[in-house]
C-alpha cells in the first residue's frame, strides 16, 4: 500500500470544514435554486460533495471575473494591487475535470512570463478534489483522460472518494497532509478501503457515456473539415452570448480596461473575463475586426480547444466537463458537431 490515505466519516465533513475555517477561507459547492455554485462556507451552510457540476467552475478563485490590477494617479505613480491573502483559501469539492483544468491554467499563466496575479492566488490555494460519482449525459471526461472521474496522483492536495458512509482521503501534497492533523476526525485507511475506491471509480467510469472518438487525430480532422456545411447550420442557431466560454474551466481570456474617475486623475486598471464568441473580442484599433463573422467565432472556440491549444500549451483546452453543452441556450454541442461531421453517433 503506497498511497497515503485516511478515512473521514461523512458525518464529520462539517466538523472538518469548521476546523479548517479557523485559519483558512474555505469554499465549496452549494446548491442554489437550480445549479451548484462555489461559495465561501460559513457556519450553517451546507456543502454538497455529491454533485454533477457547478455552473461557474472553481477557476474563479484563481482568475476572478473581475480583478483590479493597478490603482493609479496619472503622472503621479501607481500601485499594483494583488489581493493580499491573510490566510490561504481551500477549495473543497473540486471535480477531476476542473482540477485538470487548473493544471491547464498553470501552463497558461505560467511559462516564461508568469502572471503575478494568478500565481499570487494559486500559491495561496489548497485544492481538495473529490472523485465524481454522479456524471450526467453531458460529461465526456473519459475521452480526454483515462482516469476520467478520478485523479491519479496529481492535480490535488487532497482527494476525497465516496466509499459509502465515509470518504477515502488521499494525500497529494505536504500542504494537503497538514489539513489532516486534527484530532478525532480521521481513521486509518485499510487495503479494503482502497479497493472500495477502485470499485466505485470503475462503476462511475461506466456511467460516462458521451465520447469524442480519436482525440489524437482531432487536429487534422478539424483542419480538414473547416468548410463542412455543419458549421453554417450551427451558426444560424448561435446567439454569440459567450456562455460556452464563460462557464468553461479552461477558458482564460480577459480584456483590460482603465476606469477613470471624474477628476481625470485617479483610476483603476481592471481585467474582466472576455469571450471569443463576442463581437468585440477581436476588434482592434480603428475598428478593424478580424473575427467579425459569427461562423468564424463559433468555429474558433472549438478549434482553439481541440486543435490549436495543443500547439500553444501542449495540452488540449477541454477536460470534458460538459458545461458548454449544458448551459448553451441554443443547444449547440461540440461533441454532436464532431459526430455529425464524422457521420456517427455521440453516445457509444
Amino acid at each position, binding site marked *: 500500500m503506497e498511497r497515503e490515505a485516511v478515512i473521514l466519516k461523512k458525518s464529520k465533513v462539517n466538523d472538518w470544514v469548521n476546523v479548517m475555517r479557523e485559519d483558512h477561507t474555505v469554499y465549496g459547492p452549494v446548491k442554489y435554486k437550480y445549479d451548484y455554485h462555489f461559495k465561501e462556507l460559513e457556519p450553517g451552510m451546507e456543502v454538497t460533495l455529491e454533485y454533477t457540476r457547478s455552473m461557474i467552475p472553481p477557476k474563479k478563485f484563481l482568475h476572478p471575473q473581475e480583478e483590479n490590477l493597478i490603482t493609479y494617479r496619472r503622472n503621479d505613480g501607481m500601485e499594483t494591487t494583488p489581493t493580499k491573502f491573510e490566510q490561504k483559501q481551500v477549495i473543497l469539492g473540486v471535480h477531476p475535470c476542473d482540477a485538470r483544468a487548473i493544471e491547464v491554467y498553470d501552463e497558461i499563466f505560467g511559462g516564461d512570463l508568469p502572471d503575478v496575479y494568478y500565481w499570487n492566488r494559486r500559491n495561496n490555494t489548497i485544492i481538495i478534489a473529490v472523485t465524481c460519482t454522479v456524471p450526467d449525459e453531458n460529461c465526456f471526461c473519459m475521452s480526454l483522460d483515462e482516469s476520467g472521474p478520478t485523479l491519479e496522483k496529481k492535480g490535488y492536495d487532497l482527494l476525497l472518494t465516496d466509499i459509502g458512509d465515509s470518504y477515502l482521503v488521499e494525500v497529494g501534497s505536504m500542504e494537503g497532509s497538514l489539513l489532516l492533523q486534527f484530532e478525532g476526525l480521521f481513521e486509518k485507511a485499510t487495503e479494503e478501503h482502497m479497493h472500495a475506491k477502485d470499485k466505485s471509480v470503475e462503476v462511475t467510469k461506466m456511467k460516462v457515456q458521451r465520447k469524442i472518438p480519436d482525440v489524437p487525430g482531432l487536429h487534422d480532422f478539424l483542419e480538414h473539415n473547416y468548410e463542412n456545411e455543419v458549421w453554417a447550420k450551427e451558426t*444560424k442557431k448561435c446567439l454569440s452570448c459567450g456562455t460556452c466560454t464563460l462557464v468553461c474551466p479552461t477558458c482564460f481570456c480577459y480584456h483590460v480596461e482603465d476606469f477613470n474617475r*471624474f477628476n481625470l486623475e485617479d483610476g483603476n486598471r481592471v481585467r474582466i473575463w472576455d469571450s471569443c464568441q463576442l463581437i468585440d473580442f477581436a476588434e482592434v484599433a480603428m475598428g478593424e475586426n478580424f473575427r467579425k463573422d459569427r461562423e468564424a467565432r463559433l468555429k474558433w472556440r472549438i478549434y482553439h480547444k481541440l486543435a490549436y491549444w495543443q500547439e500553444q500549451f501542449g495540452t488540449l483546452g477541454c477536460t470534458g466537463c460538459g458545461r458548454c453543452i449544458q*448551459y448553451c*441556450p441554443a443547444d449547440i454541442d461540440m461533441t454532436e458537431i464532431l459526430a455529425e461531421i464524422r457521420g456517427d453517433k455521440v453516445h457509444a
Partner: protein
Amino acid sequence: MDKPRIAVYKFSSCAGCQLQFINFESELLDMLGQIHISYFKEATSLVEDPPYDIGFIEGSVTCPHEEKKIKQAREDCKVLVAMGACACEGCINTLKNYRPIEEQVKRVYEHPEYIDTFDKAYGIDHFVDVDAYIHGCPVDRDELREFVVATLMAKKPFLRPHAVCVECKLNENECLLLRENGLCLGSVTRGGCGAVCPSWGRPCFGCRGPNVDANPEALVEIFRKKGYPDDEIRRRFQYFSGETPAFRKGAEACV
C-alpha cells in the same frame, strides 16, 4: 483647455436618464470641475445660449413640435449624444406604433382634439445624425461616467456591445431562459446594465436595444421550442425596441 459646455435636453421621456447626472451625488463636484453646464433644466434654471459642445438628448421624438426642436438641437450642439432608450430606440413610446393613432389618442386623452402627434414615435436618429449612443432605461450611471470621462480624455469608452448574458454569467445568475423557460431577451440585448433584471429574477425585456450582432431569429426558435405562442414573442420584441432593425426582425419572424 476651457471646460466643454454641456446641454441636457428633454423630449418625450420620464426624466429618469437626466436624473442619473444628478445621482452622481458625491462625485458631482469632481464632475463640475471638468464640464460646464450651459443648459440643463432639471438641474438649474440658469440657461446659457448655444452653441454647446456636447448635447445629451433624453427622450424620443413623437410630435411635430419635437421634430423642430431636435433639428435645432443638432444645429446648436457640436456633438450630439442620444442618452437612454427613448432617444436611442424610441423605448416604450413606440408602443403606439403598432395601433391606429386615433384610437390611442382617444383612449388616453380627455380632449383628443388638442393633441398634435405623429402616428409613430422614433429614436432621435430618425431625424438627425447622432454621434454617440448611451443605452438603457435608464442609462447606467457607471456607463454614463465612463462615457463622459472617456470623452474628456479622448479615449474610446468601454460600453459593452455584446449580450446581457455575459454579465449574467459574471454575476453567476442561474439562467432564466434555460432554467425557468423565461421569455428573456438578454441574449439579443446589449449589455452594460450589469444584467440587473435577471440578477433580481426578472427576464430581460430588452430595454437597452439589440446588441451589435444580435441573432433574434435564433432566439425566436428557442422561445417557440419552449412553447411560447408567436403572438407573445412578437409583443416581447416590440416592448422597448421594436423599431430597431434587429428586434423588428425578431417580431417579423413571428407569424
